[in-house]
């Protein structure tokens, strides 16, 4: 028997009008951590869906060979029975069930035809310990953070006796600390004999964890590199991903910062209206005209809360004290509508949940935050709308046949561009971007960065909230770091390093 647990030979898969996979070969050695990388739309997720039976046998060409035998999965359950477990990017947990119920959902522990609850909670506890979680299996799923939920998903996979675990972007919604924690766990599982396939956009963690990396581009395998054969670097991976050497991930920008203070927050304190919890403590910050401010911090540090409370989302966050100044004048935004009118825009971190109207088309979304620009005596001029939307579509390179394309059918990167198009159309003075490049590929990221540079060049100011340290360092003129609702540090572009930011973000003393 060879040492490959899995071999996928000549896999091709088509969707109407698109060839998602073209003759892909993919082999995974027993007991290794194998990373699958590639730009969005390269076919990574599709390949894993073929493997796990979500795309059933017959809907693709080629062979799946598991432990030397050809597999013909028709459902996920069939693949699960052979020891394959897939953990999707969007977690499949049910918030109102307990942790234990979630772990055994779909394969409940039964006794005489009924669920054996004592055994369920006992077993759940064992699996939770295995993934390093010390939580009550009777607690509700919704009361746990995303990082914890991710680990529960892994516990669930282990409870199904998974031998081959597939993780699709497991760290994309985790902060650096939780990510590191997760990667440590994967290493631990590997020691216990579990083979792991991980899809990730975070090349840094790919480099740190993978023994083998397979790179997909446009539905085909372009390269497989092994850590024991060659040195793996991020640049090398990027080169194969995009087919060219990208020596600079962050486009160069001449500083556009002026002395004029555009926006100022003074002694800003707020608490969550529902939980009563204090979320922001004495925030003071300044944004100059033409400046990109980076807001770094771990998830839950209060950055999104700060943005929302400034943006006038008062029902959710009650402001106790604090003042805002826009162009020297004291302001208060009573609602998002008010904030937009006065020149502040906020692009949310989750474009699907609360950023875009996916069932509508590009032009609808583009004009939505500033319909006055296409109104003539109260009547919407649809032709004008199309012309304006088209202009923006061209200038920021949204890849779609027309502005009448429904957003649901666009890739993540293009959707994100529509988010930006919408806010550019609203012509704000200050744009708050919350995780502007989350979940989009390297090429689209570069375009978004270029666009941000363009925006500040035209005199706009940007506050960029980002959990990617390199992005914060690469793009910002100045950086504020938050920790538990407070600003713990301020760094200029020249003095910013990942270490320094992490120290402020975790509020620990810097070790020298």
């Amino acid at each position, binding site marked *: 028997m060879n040492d490959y647990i899995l071999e996928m030979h000549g896999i091709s898969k088509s969707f109407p009008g698109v060839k998602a996979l073209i003759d892909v070969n993919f082999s995974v050695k027993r007991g290794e951590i194998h990373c699958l990388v590639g730009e969005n739309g390269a076919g990574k997720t599709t390949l894993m869906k073929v493997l796990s039976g979500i795309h059933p046998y017959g809907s693709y060409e080629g062979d799946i060979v598991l432990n030397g035998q050809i597999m013909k999965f028709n459902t996920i359950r069939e693949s699960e029975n052979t020891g394959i477990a897939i953990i999707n990017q969007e977690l499949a947990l049910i918030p109102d069930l307990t942790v234990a119920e979630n772990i055994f959902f779909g394969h409940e522990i039964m006794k005489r035809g009924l669920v054996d609850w004592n055994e369920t909670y006992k077993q759940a506890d064992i699996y939770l310990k295995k993934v390093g979680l010390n939580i009550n299996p009777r607690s509700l799923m919704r009361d746990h953070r995303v990082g914890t939920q991710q680990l529960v998903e892994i516990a669930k996979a282990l409870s199904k006796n998974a031998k081959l675990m597939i993780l699709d972007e497991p760290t994309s919604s985790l902060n650096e600390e939780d990510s590191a924690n997760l990667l440590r766990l994967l290493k631990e599982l590997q020691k216990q004999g579990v083979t792991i396939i991980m899809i990730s956009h975070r090349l840094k963690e790919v480099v740190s964890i993978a023994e083998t990396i397979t790179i997909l581009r446009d539905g085909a395998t372009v390269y497989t590199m092994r850590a024991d054969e060659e040195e793996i670097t991020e640049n090398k991976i990027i080169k194969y991903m995009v087919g060219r050497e990208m020596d600079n991930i962050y486009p160069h920008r001449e500083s556009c910062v002026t002395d004029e203070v555009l926006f100022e927050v003074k002694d800003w304190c707020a608490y969550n209206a529902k939980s009563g919890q204090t979320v922001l403590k004495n925030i003071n910050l300044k944004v100059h005209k033409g400046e990109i401010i980076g807001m770094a911090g771990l998830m839950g540090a209060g950055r999104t809360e700060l943005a929302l409370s400034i*943006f006038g*989302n008062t029902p959710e966050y009650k402001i106790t004290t604090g003042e805002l100044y826009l162009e020297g004048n004291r302001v208060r935004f009573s*609602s*998002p*509508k008010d*904030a*937009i*009118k006065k020149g502040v825009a*906020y692009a*949310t971190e989750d474009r699907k*949940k*609360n*950023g*875009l*109207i*996916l*069932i*509508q088309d590009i032009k*609808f979304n583009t*004009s*939505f*935050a500033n*319909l*006055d620009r296409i*109104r003539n005596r*109260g*009547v*919407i001029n649809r*032709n004008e709308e*199309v*012309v304006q939307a088209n202009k923006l579509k061209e200038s920021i390179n949204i890849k779609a046949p*027309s502005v*009448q394309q429904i957003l649901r059918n666009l890739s993540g990167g293009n959707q994100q561009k529509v988010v930006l198009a*919408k806010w550019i159309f609203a012509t704000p003075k200050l744009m708050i971007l919350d995780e502007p490049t989350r979940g989009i590929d390297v090429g689209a990221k570069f375009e978004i960065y270029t666009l941000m540079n363009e925006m500040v060049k035209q005199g706009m100011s940007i506050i960029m909230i980002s959990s990617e340290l390199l992005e914060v360092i690469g793009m910002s003129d100045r950086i504020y770091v938050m920790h538990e609702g407070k600003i713990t540090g301020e760094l200029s572009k020249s003095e910013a390093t990942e270490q320094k930011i992490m120290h402020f973000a975790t509020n620990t003393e810097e070790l020298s």
Partner: protein
Amino acid sequence: MSENKKTGREYGKTLVTNLRNYLMYIALAVIFIVFQILSNGSFLTARNITNLINQTGYIAVMAVGMTLILIIRQIDLSVGFVAGFLGAAAARLLKAGVAVLPTILIVLAMGVMIGLVQGLIIGKVGVPAFITTLAFEFGFRGLLTLITEATGTIPIQSDVFYELSNGFIPELFKIGDLSGSCLIAGAISMALIVFSEIRKRKELKRYKFEDMPVLLFILKLLFFVALIGTLTVVLAGYRGISWTIVIVVIVIAIYSFVMNKTKVGRYIYGMGGNPEAAQLSGVDIKRILIGSFASMGLMAALGGILYTSRLGSATPTAGMGFELDAIASCYIAGVSTSGGVGSVANSVIGAFVIMSLTNGLNLIGVGISYQYLIKGIIFILAVALDVRSRGKKALG
């Protein structure tokens, strides 16, 4: 892909996309033909069609109001007895000697107030629409019984009020047996439709968008012209254009304009598509919600007036099940059950589909129990066809 050369398959696709948009008209045509055959030709008579239109009026206006409610992902179960109560209120006011116009205005204002209160309870207090409006349905059923209790049925004593749902626009001249004012109105609307469609197409061309093939466009125009032409001639053969038609057309025109050409309309669609995103884009979603319920109240009042006028009296059971007919009209007309999609004009056609069924089944002598059964089956079939043709995934 070359822009100019379209394959046969693409033409086919365009055809299917376009057909889907007219599915309801086709359904209506099929219903007409079937009833025409089953009734031995008595369905498509001038008299019956006029009758059918006047019958549909009150449901049609309520379906218009309901469309907005369903688009923003809410529901209104109260409109049945709210309409019934307001109709009775109108009858009481007229009986008390209030003139027709003030009566109508007072009743419409009451409708708006009722909608506003419901909107406030839903939007500001946070009680779900299903529960709030269900409670109002109970309440207004009580109120209706209360104001009709003493007298039982309240007859309408105003001719003008009675004319609203039973009268016709005055005759200018006659061509043979045909009503002249009706023919003129028909000709004007035909011209308007052809003109606006051609203008729309020209603009689409100018902006180089994907457009339906010329042949299909001409077919579509011919279809509209034929439809209106037939309708005009049929109506002209009886008593011409009823006030109900005028009222419904005005309601459709105003609502279509608001929904397609104004900020409020955009906000309604946007809020239906994604309320959170709409709010963070500067939409005051509570105001939109309250406004939509106020508009629903207004339409319920209008529906109540039309129904009472039609019957010539207010009865203690008026309004029973209207809300269900209105909701069914919308869903048959392709309003999405998950919100964000729908058109008021289509919902009016949906109301016609439902009322044609009632009218036709009555005409061929099907008993009321079987009528409900058949309506239920057709409702499911219609929506199933719509859902499948949109390529939506079924659960599981």
